[in-house]
């Protein structure tokens, strides 16, 4: 998440744009891959606010309007700013290679696009996209150790996501930053375009309003526009949060939650499940976070949705054969597996009947599988990332196990029908690694004394597994030593926090600098760590490291080697034959 960093990114972006030699900027950007027939906004920005007579835009040597078959509009001094803008909202193109040139006086800017077709017939009836938010390789390794066990160098079992036919290494950068955030990263999967940090379904142009930037169509919109396939969006974060929002949203600022709820209503995915109900309630309802009187609970009901606010209601809706389901199970994020199962902390007492991601996935599949034209389902295990921001690796790994159990549900659904493409992929990494084990029986008083590395790294003694493959005791005498590569000033206790999610740092009295949370600094082994992040960071940050994608089903064979994240969209669009009008 790290919204603070986002401001920096925006500020740096405009600093570059303000340099005097700024050239014309063309959207979609250079090397864009565009699905044939998909909608996108074409925009060219000309610095220093020229008149239309001073500029020319051609595509493959012809006037842009001729290639698009639609007129463009030109605005001098767009929004009173020091640039002029040429626009065509809702453009489409047939498959082919395109060279776009924008000429302004003696300056020429050029971008190339590939508009790709998809071959018929459609190969997959269904696509299930699992996103492990912030799930690094160490999350998978630790999940395997905790849920399958380890003995003499071998694991006693494979994760459901390990045992899939295809694998690829995915790079996750955005246009503006090597290290991306979840908005822009999920946007790459749902649109096939690269964009900037904080953006969903748009390119980042100079527009002042967050909703005015040049849009690109999301896979949910393409599917809804083209036919009768059903759409599901399932998460344990707030439903307005970046990853689920990437299915429907077009905004330069991911925190436009109230607008994002409206966008969910515009696109109407058949299944919508997560937390984050306050942005659905009119502002006069105590508990609302809206700033207007719109009642989206009522609006979704009017649109034929069954509302579920608990696991019991969710299952009842599925049993009753509901075709459309809005499930909102918490005002904030749904509690993670660690708190749901072990501590009953967090908001479990307030919301005692929340479904976890596995139960949500089951319900979503039961509801969607009746659709004759198939479905596209996105399932996110969101808090893998959020807990890593808090340097709370046990909770992050529990939610990795939870994701894997949801993948198991999907694999059981797909069975041997061979019509369902299942993809499991993180949106980005965190700098997290396993370096050995802590053993309380080792001599010494410091956390470092208790750490065994290489041959001194004794196997952990986590408690017996429950029926769902989670260890029932994690606060044991021999524990994995998991380290994060990025952290603010903090204290490392070397053991799980059984009182609730870790709070690694808190804001100091100057309102800017973050300092260690003293709550963690007093335990018997607590080790003070001087942060390695900027002083205004209060939690861990994402990493640019590539992530591991695994997949099975029709189309999965295309995942091999190293690919950019936009390629995931392309494989899904090809499997569903989403190209053309």
């Amino acid at each position: 998440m790290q919204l603070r960093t986002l401001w920096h990114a925006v500020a740096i972006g405009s600093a570059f744009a303000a340099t005097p030699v700024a050239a014309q900027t063309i959207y979609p950007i250079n090397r864009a891959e565009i699905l044939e027939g998909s909608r996108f906004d074409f925009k060219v920005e000309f610095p220093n606010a020229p008149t239309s007579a001073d500029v020319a835009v051609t595509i493959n040597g012809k006037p842009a309007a001729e290639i698009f078959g639609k007129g463009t509009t030109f605005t001098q001094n767009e929004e009173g700013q020091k640039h002029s803008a040429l626009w065509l909202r809702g453009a489409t193109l047939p498959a082919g290679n395109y060279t776009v040139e924008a000429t302004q006086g003696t300056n020429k800017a050029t971008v190339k696009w590939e508009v790709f077709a998809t071959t018929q017939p459609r190969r997959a009836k269904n696509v299930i996209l699992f996103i492990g938010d912030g799930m690094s390789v160490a999350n998978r390794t630790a999940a395997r150790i905790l849920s399958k066990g380890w003995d003499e160098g071998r694991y006693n079992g494979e994760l459901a996501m390990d045992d899939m036919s295809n694998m690829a290494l995915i790079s996750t950068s955005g246009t503006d930053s090597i290290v991306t955030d979840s908005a822009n990263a999920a946007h790459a999967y749902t649109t096939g375009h690269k964009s900037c940090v904080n953006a969903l379904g748009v390119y980042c142009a100079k527009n002042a309003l967050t909703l005015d930037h040049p849009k690109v169509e999301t896979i949910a919109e393409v599917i809804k526009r083209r036919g009768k396939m059903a759409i599901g969006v399932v998460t344990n974060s707030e439903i307005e949060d970046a990853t689920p929002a990437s299915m429907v949203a077009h905004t330069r600022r991911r925190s436009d939650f109230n607008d994002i709820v409206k966008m969910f209503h515009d696109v109407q995915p058949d299944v919508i499940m997560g937390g984050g109900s306050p942005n659905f309630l009119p502002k006069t309802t105590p508990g609302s976070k809206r700033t207007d009187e719109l009642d989206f609970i009522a609006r979704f009901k009017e649109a034929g949705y069954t509302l579920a606010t608990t696991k019991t209601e969710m299952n009842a809706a599925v049993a009753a054969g509901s075709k459309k389901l809005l499930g909102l199970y918490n005002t904030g994020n749904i509690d993670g597996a660690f708190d749901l199962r072990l501590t009953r902390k967090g908001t479990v007492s307030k919301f005692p009947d929340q479904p976890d991601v596995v139960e949500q996935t089951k319900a979503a599949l039961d509801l969607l599988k009746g659709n004759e034209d198939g479905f596209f389902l996105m399932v996110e295990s969101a808090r893998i990332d959020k807990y890593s921001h808090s340097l709370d690796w046990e909770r992050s790994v529990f939610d990795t196990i939870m994701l894997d159990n949801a993948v198991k549900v999907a694999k059981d659904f797909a069975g041997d029908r061979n019509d369902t493409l299942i993809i499991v992929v993180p949106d980005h990494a965190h700098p997290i690694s396993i370096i050995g084990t802590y053993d309380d029986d080792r001599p010494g008083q410091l956390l470092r004394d208790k750490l065994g590395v290489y041959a001194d790294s004794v196997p952990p003694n986590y408690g017996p597994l429950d029926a769902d493959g989670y260890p029932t005791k994690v606060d044991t005498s021999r524990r994995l030593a998991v380290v994060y590569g990025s952290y603010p000033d903090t204290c490392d206790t070397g053991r799980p926090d059984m009182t609730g999610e870790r709070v690694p740092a808190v804001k100091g009295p100057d309102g800017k600098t973050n300092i260690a949370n003293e709550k963690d600094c007093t335990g018997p082994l607590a080790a003070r760590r001087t942060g390695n992040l900027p002083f205004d960071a209060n939690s861990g940050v994402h990493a640019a490291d590539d992530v591991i994608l695994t997949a099975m089903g029709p189309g999965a064979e295309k995942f091999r080697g190293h690919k950019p994240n936009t390629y995931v969209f392309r494989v899904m669009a090809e499997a569903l034959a989403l190209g053309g009008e």
Partner: protein
Amino acid sequence: MQRQRHEMLTTRRVTLMGLAVALLCREARAAEPATIAFDGLYKSFGVLGFQFSDRVTSLRGQEVRLTGYMAPPLKPESHFFVLTREPLAICPFCQSDADWPVDIVVVFMKEITPMVSAGRKVVVSGRLEIGSATDPETGFVSQIRLVDARFTLA
């Protein structure tokens, strides 16, 4: 800590000086703000909204005292901050109110005051307001507020 000592003194006085003084004392204490707690703010709390407890409703417009954690302040000096039940893990106000927990209490100070570390427990006294209101300065929508408030470290 300070309140405990106050109560101990009160008790001693009661035993030493007898009933009349005890009655006086009780009257003097009745003028002090009523204490409310995060746990007692609501009688129902669900995803479709919540209802304030009868006690909170009856204390509307009166001076109350509430203990909580100061959320990361916007500025080192401000007349406005957010009080939360638990210390917040992630700085939410960097860009918007999107990530706030729902059961926050917004505090408008009597005067601009230097803020303390986020994560510090504070005791806030102020006049209780409930019902939806939008701060004209920040656009922040709140359902429960303490206004003309002061705080001390807990």
